[in-house]
């Protein structure tokens, strides 16, 4: 039943629009009416928004899909053209990460599986109908039962109604449901929490309530559990003047670079620090609840010297840290990521838990009541067990749903081979992944923007999943598939489909009215029973009995396999946009690389793009190098998801897969591999771009006093300042809260129809992004980032040189680019000191069907045209249009640019600089405000807020 009936069923007739596409329209020659008009008015220039859920990673942020009416391929219809965050959503509050922004590329991906497929006799895939697929699967299930083989259900993390349905399905069909499979299963963390608190869960960390944050290895701003939520909370936290944040990590992460103080620790040495901290704590008088003596005695008590010698943290830093930790009112300590995914990870997590308990964090900032719904997620141990069963030919039918184990674990296990031992392999996915290639029956799943459903990202929150477009291909939701199979098995013809099932669920859970609000708001918060968290001393003791902490620090050099902010665990690698956007830290776009510390590179005589061979005892890996300053000398980094083929150890106690390869050796091969590195130079060379640069400080002070004293600038000008009418649009970028996650970059691409040009062009240095993140090394101890986009200069050097007025300054202070007037002299770009103008070297239209996501509100530029950021002029115009209807001026905050809208930390403010009361002009007047390359007198409309000075130590 389509969307319309569904909502009818719920008694919702208005509020949200109906998907109904019809009509044929040869773009210009014909003009096509609807056959039957949609129930609610949707027309060009008035998009609708559907609140649903982002399914790019387990965090399940609230996603609000913008749907525009437009004509595509001779069809007038409604198409999702942009993903935004759901306003006020408890997890992401209006923000999205780059993966979320890019998720439309998955919806319209040409490589999606479009119809069910089964293997024919000679093992090739053939198109099948759903019916025969169902029939085949059910018979096979039956047959397997008779063979006394057990049928298994193997899926990725699943929450909400679907989880329940799967349970019911397995029950009815006599299928054993395996623990859910996630690469980042946080196994050690959960195991430790189980030991200490009997809570095998990932808690919800209230970062925004903390005044002191100590993170150990957890890349909270990038991929750790729920990054957008963390980032949003961080954005809140930094508003607090005396918020301090220490980050300890063996590698180098953007999270670390954002911390007030980042301390590099030797790999595997975290436990010494934690043990030291725990003891220091129990000794000090500020402790809340000291762990039992028994426990304390079993935890080694290293001296400060020993610790600093093992970890590499200087004694005084250690001192600072501990004291800061103790004086904090609401401290929060989080251990995770690289620091738990290591041989000593479990101990590290355990000690952390003890510290949390001792500091009484569990009743404040470490919240198990709202834990992250990871309890059903298994670990590598479960995978090992599964393989065991496969090896013993004990497996009949195995369902593999929403996961790609073949790629994820092939390095460790010969999964492909073992899988062949199963009687039948049924795959459910949207892509023909390596795992699907191994299946006999492949059932295409609808994208979440095509289907109804719900999700429970963490306890206490239920997100709705609702369609923004009707299924483009012959696909089904997983729920429907399961119900259909059950029905076929039971032989009954008719039955409720998944949508009805959902509605029943919701009604029973929330009642009618709540359900409606669930659908309209996109989420609903349900009360959770408070938990009383106490240390289970016995289990801790029994655990500690048989652990030795005397673990040696890793034999260096080590290779660390980190998650990637662009592809998470690799699942988002298929989205072209995420390859087009540079990795913020290295500015590498397409391809795989290994980050080598500047020191090591110098020693080995390595330059960017030189190939090196990394050899562990039995295997060799060859990758091009990206020289990475600040990275500790003996640490090499690769990103998981870009690189699968690395075998790592598995912790036999928790099943956590280590992210480390110890004792590697790296050698230069002499080959050079083309690798698109977008940054021309990592060194700012005192250009006055970084906030730390003294000329910037000086200029900004000069500028600020000018503003305050209203000095008449005319005196200093060779020609008079030109007037603005009503508006002077401007922007402020707060470099303190900006976390360089590149969400803005992705948002800009999608909002402004910016072409994705591919690797070849990028190697030529022809990237098209209108907004970019520029990393600059600062005296080799720190990396500062800055956001660069068109500065909308008042005296823009690019404007006067255009021979045909294709670019000019409009009365509202926008540096306008008139695309259809541009003849492509590229003079403007040459003359732009910020180099933010982009030239269309070729016609780069997105290939079908990706071009469905083009934003109809502005043009798609053809070859030979210069393009650039115009502060989302289409949005400004829309707001002005609305204001004009009500015969008023645009209100402050009414225009929201794409980059601003998606920013998790709300670092970007946009508005009218002429209106002194507007937020933007107030921020622009603050003392931290400065403008890039002020000395050129270009009078930019973008004001950066200087990053607060921090004592960095590395």
């Amino acid at each position, binding site marked *: 039943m389509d969307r319309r009936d569904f909502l009818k069923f719920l008694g919702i007739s208005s509020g949200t629009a109906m998907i109904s596409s019809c009509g044929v329209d040869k773009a210009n020659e014909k003009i096509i009416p609807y056959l039957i008009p949609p129930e609610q008015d949707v027309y060009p220039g008035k998009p609708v928004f559907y609140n649903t859920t982002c399914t790019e990673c387990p965090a399940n942020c609230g996603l609000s899909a913008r749907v525009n009416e437009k004509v595509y391929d001779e069809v007038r219809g409604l198409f999702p053209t942009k993903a935004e965050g759901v306003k006020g959503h408890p997890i992401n509050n209006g923000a999205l990460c780059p993966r979320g922004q890019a998720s439309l590329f998955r919806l319209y991906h040409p490589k999606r599986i479009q119809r069910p497929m089964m293997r024919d006799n000679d093992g090739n895939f053939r198109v099948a109908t759903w019916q025969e697929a169902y029939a085949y699967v059910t018979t096979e299930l039956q047959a397997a039962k008779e063979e006394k083989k057990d049928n298994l259900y193997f899926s990725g993390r699943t929450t909400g109604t679907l989880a329940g349905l799967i349970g019911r399905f397995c029950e009815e069909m006599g299928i054993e449901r395996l623990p859910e499979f996630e690469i980042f299963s946080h196994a050690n963390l959960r195991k430790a929490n189980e030991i200490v608190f009997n809570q095998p869960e990932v808690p919800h960390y209230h970062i925004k309530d903390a005044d002191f944050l100590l993170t150990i290895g957890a890349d909270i701003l990038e991929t750790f559990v729920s990054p957008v939520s963390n980032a949003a909370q961080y954005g809140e936290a930094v508003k607090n003047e005396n918020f301090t944040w220490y980050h300890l990590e063996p590698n180098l992460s953007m999270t670390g670079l954002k911390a007030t103080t980042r301390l590099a620790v030797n790999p595997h040495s975290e436990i010494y620090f934690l043990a030291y901290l725990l003891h220091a704590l129990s000794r000090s008088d500020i402790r809340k609840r000291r762990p039992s003596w028994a426990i304390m005695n079993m935890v080694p008590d290293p001296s400060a010297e020993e610790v600093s010698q093992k970890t590499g943290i200087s004694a005084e830093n250690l001192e600072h840290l501990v004291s800061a930790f103790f004086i904090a009112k609401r401290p929060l300590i989080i251990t995770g990521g690289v620091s738990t995914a290591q041989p000593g990870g479990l101990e590290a997590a355990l000690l952390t838990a003890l510290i949390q308990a001792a500091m009484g964090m569990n009743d404040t900032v470490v919240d198990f009541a709202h834990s992250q719904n990871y309890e059903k997620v298994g670990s590598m141990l479960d995978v090992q067990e599964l393989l065991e069963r496969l090896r013993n030919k004990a497996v009949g039918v195995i369902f593999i749903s929403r996961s790609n184990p073949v790629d994820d674990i092939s390095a460790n296990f010969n999964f492909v081979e073992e899988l062949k031992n199963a009687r039948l392999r049924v795959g459910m996915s949207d892509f023909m992944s390596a795992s699907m290639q191994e299946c006999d029956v492949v059932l295409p799943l609808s994208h979440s923007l095509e289907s109804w459903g719900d999700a429970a990202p963490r306890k206490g929150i239920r997100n709705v999943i609702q369609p923004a477009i009707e299924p483009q291909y012959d696909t089904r939701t997983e729920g429907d598939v399961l119900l259909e199979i059950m029905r076929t098995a039971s032989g009954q013809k008719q039955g409720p489909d998944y949508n009805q099932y959902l509605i029943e669920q919701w009604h029973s859970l929330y009642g009618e009215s709540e359900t409606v609000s669930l659908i309209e708001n996109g989420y609903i918060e349900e009360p959770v029973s408070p938990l009383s968290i106490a240390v289970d001393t016995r289990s801790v003791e029994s655990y500690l009995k048989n652990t030795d902490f005397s673990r040696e620090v890793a034999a260096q050099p080590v290779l660390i396999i980190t998650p990637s902010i662009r592809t998470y665990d690799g699942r988002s690698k298929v989205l072209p946009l995420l390859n087009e956007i540079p990795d913020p830290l290295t500015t590498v776009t397409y391809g795989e690389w290994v980050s080598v510390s500047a020191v090591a590179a110098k020693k080995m005589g390595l330059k960017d793009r030189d190939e090196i061979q990394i050899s562990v005892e039995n295997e060799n890996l060859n990758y091009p190098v990206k020289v990475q300053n600040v990275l500790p000398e003996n640490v090499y980094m690769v990103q998981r998801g870009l690189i699968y083929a690395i075998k790592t150890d598995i912790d036999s106690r928790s099943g956590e897969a280590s992210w480390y390869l110890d004792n590697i050796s790296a050698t230069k091969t002499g080959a050079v591999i083309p690798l698109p590195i977008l940054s021309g130079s990592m060194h700012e060379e005192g250009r006055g771009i970084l906030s730390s640069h003294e000329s910037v400080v000086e200029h900004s002070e000069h500028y600020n006093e000018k503003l305050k004293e209203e000095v008449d600038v005319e005196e200093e*000008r060779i020609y008079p300042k030109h007037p603005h009418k009503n508006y002077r649009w401007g922007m402020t970028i707060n470099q303190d809260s900006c976390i360089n996650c590149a969400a803005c970059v992705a948002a800009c691409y999608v909002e402004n129809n910016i072409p994705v040009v591919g690797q070849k062009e990028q190697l030529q240095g022809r990237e098209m992004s209108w907004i970019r993140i520029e990393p600059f090394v600062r005296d080799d101890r720190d990396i500062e980032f800055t956001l660069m986009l068109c500065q909308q200069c008042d005296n823009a050097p690019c404007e006067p040189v255009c021979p045909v007025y294709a670019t000019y300054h409009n009365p509202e202070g926008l540096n306008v680019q008139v695309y259809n007037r541009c003849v492509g002299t590229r003079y403007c770009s040459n003359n732009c000191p910020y180099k933010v103008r982009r030239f269309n070297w070729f016609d780069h239209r997105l290939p079908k069907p990706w071009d469905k996501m083009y934003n109809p509100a502005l043009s798609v530029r053809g070859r030979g045209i210069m393009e650039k950021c115009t502060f989302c002029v289409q949005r400004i115009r829309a707001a002005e249009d609305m204001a004009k209807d009500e015969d008023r001026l645009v209100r402050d905050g009414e225009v929201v640019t794409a980059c601003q809208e998606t920013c998790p930390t709300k670092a970007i403010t946009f508005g009218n600089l002429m209106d002194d009361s507007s937020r933007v002009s107030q921020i622009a007047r603050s003392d931290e405000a400065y403008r890039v390359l002020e000395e050129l007198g270009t009078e930019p409309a973008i004001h950066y807020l200087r990053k607060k000075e921090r004592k960095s130590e590395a």
Partner: protein
Amino acid sequence: MNKLQLKPVMLGIAAIVIGAVIVLIQNILIPESGGTFLLTLTFWVALIQGAVAVVAAADASAAKWITPLKRELLSFYPLILFIAILFLFLGLQMDVYPWIDKQNKWLNVPFFLVRNFLAMLVLYIVAHFYAKATLANSEGKGRWAIAYLFIYVTVQSLVAFDWVMSLAYPWVSTLFGGIFFMEAFYTGLVIAALIAAYYLRKEVEDPVSMSKVLRDTAVFTFGFALAWAGLFYAQFLVIWYGNIPEETSYLVIRMHHSPYMEIFYVSVFFLFILPFVGLIGRKAKISPNWVTLVAFIVLAGIVLERILFILPDASINPIAAVAEFILMGFLFLLFFASRDQFIKALEMSK
């Protein structure tokens, strides 16, 4: 005029006396305003070196038109040395320069004085040999002429970049040197015109050739008025268009703020518009009185422009300035009047 004739020795003494007086005025009466001294130097250095350069240029391009005025124009060459020495006393008033308290590799007092003095010294020596050669009309005069022009360009560029431009440190304009040696040449031409006109009125020389010289000098003056405008515009436009505060500040103060503004417009009028319009006509070019008038106006223009360059950054004491100009002018006339004395000597010496 002949009353002023002096023996070379006396000339030397006169020079020393006048020089001494100027230095005294500068360091006793107005020690604080080095600008005045700079004004005197920059003007006369142009006048003197320019006059010789005109002859040299004519010789280098094997042009004949200047021959009748050779001796007159060359009579000033010893003053090159005089200026060089006088310049050394600027060392006592280096505080006019803003870079004095943050000196760097190029801009530091000793090097500043040494390089400029040496350059002018060399120029003087070359000028000496050149004068000799050209008066004797020997083979090598062409070569000496070229040599002179080389060093002349160098010296004038130094004058521009070191003496004047560094007043507005760190402001930079690469064309400044070009403007200066062009202007020096311009002044030289004007002097030639003046002398020609003077002779025509006094009818001491053969009027036919003189009137020809007058016309040619007038034509060139006309041309250089255009050239001046061109260079000035070339510099102005680039800065105006680029609109970089560091650069524009220099123009803004001189073009938008009284009194510099007025000085600016007057000097443009004197250096470009008036000679251009004034000398466009055929008759104008051959009327001695008219040409004299224009010539003096151009000289005034040059002075004003120098003032414009200096004044905003360094104070100028009007009375002292006038005094110094009179003294220099007098010395100038002395050399002109007594040219026969030492020019003959020069011609004799083999």
